């Protein structure tokens, strides 16, 4: 009789163990599902495909690095002549080039006029010639000035400056920067 009691007790214990096992399995299952779901929803090489041009090394250079127009007469074009500047493509693929300049001179005395009409009071215009698409410079990158410059090829160009007839003062030295941006054709 005593043995039976012990057996009943053991049976009760084993039943509780079985219940706790089931609970444990359910918890483990839930944890596994919870842990795996975010991995499936994260970016992976299955749902993000990245492609690139293996030969697309890009590098452009400009010569000269700076230029002085010296004194310029208001209302008259002053040009660098004979292809003073050179655009180089030292990359491994054909390149397109965009050009822009600052909206004012560094001294902020004069403003850029990019419309092609004669510059008004305290304005100046810059014009690029001899590249594929000669045009006035603007203060944002727009259409390309040159397209498809081959790898290790170069091209010469000139820059023209026009200062407006009307100036509010006899300005001294004015400086500005011209930016060249190269990208794959």
């Amino acid at each position, binding site marked *: *009789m005593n*043995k039976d009691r012990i*057996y009943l007790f053991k*049976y009760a214990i*084993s*039943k509780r163990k*079985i219940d706790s096992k*089931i609970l444990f399995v*359910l918890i483990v*299952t839930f944890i*596994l*599902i919870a842990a*795996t*779901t*975010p991995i*499936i*929803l*994260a*970016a992976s*090489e299955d*749902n*993000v*495909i*990245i*492609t690139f*041009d293996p030969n*697309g*090394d*890009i*590098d*452009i*250079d*400009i*010569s*000269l*690095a*700076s*230029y*002085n*127009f010296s004194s310029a007469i208001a209302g008259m074009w002053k040009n660098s002549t004979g292809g003073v500047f050179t655009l*180089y493509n*030292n*990359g491994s*693929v054909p390149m*397109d080039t*965009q050009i822009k300049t600052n909206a004012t001179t560094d001294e902020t005395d004069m403003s850029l006029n990019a419309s092609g009409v004669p510059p008004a009071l305290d304005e100046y215009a810059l014009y690029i010639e001899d590249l594929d698409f000669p045009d006035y410079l603007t203060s944002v*990158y*727009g*259409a390309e000035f040159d397209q498809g410059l081959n790898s290790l090829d170069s091209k010469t160009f000139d820059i023209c400056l026009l200062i407006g007839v009307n100036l509010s003062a006899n300005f001294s*030295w*004015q*400086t500005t*920067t*011209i*930016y*060249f*941006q*190269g*990208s*794959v054709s």
Partner: protein
Amino acid sequence: MKKLTILFLTILVLFPSFSVVTKGGFEIWPGKLTITMNEWYDKWVETKYNKIHVTNPYSYGINVSVKLDHPGAEVIYEGYSNIPDLSWIKIEPLILYLPPYSSDTVKVIIEVPKDEQSKYFNENWETWVIFDSNLYPGGQGGMNFKVELAVKLFINTPKGEASLSRYLLILLFSSFSFFVTFIIFIYTKKRKNYLIKDTKPNSSLFFYRRKRF
């Protein structure tokens, strides 16, 4: 004659220093990077190819800074448009120091906010990653030149709602887990029955079982 030769050699040595060139000062690769998303995701995880390599081929160290910009309407690829928000693209790091003759990479990470994703299925965006170095001769003349290099970044968004395959995987995994749980449950139940069956006829458990069934 000897003097002339020395003069000629001196000019030859000095000549390169007169020819000042504005250089990008570095090389970048690749020039075009296309990221195509088959499905939206919640978080970007590391992939193998979302990197742009920057090389300093010179004998001096340079700083390279990186920024993002929309290409102008005149130069954007046909069928592509500007990304609605540039902050959805992250570049890491934004400033890079390259020691002489060294290379490094910057990572391009695309993270479209979850609440915006449903608005932008089947979109083709073009953005430019622009690299600029401190090799800038500024202040040398009335007009100074600066060179920037741009990597064209193309982003293609998912064509439509997430395909069933993603949910199929979750469903399969859940089914498998429940199946395993079920098997374990059956096994433990059988074991319990085995324990009851094996009770001795003269034990009180035997009577308990007989009373019950």
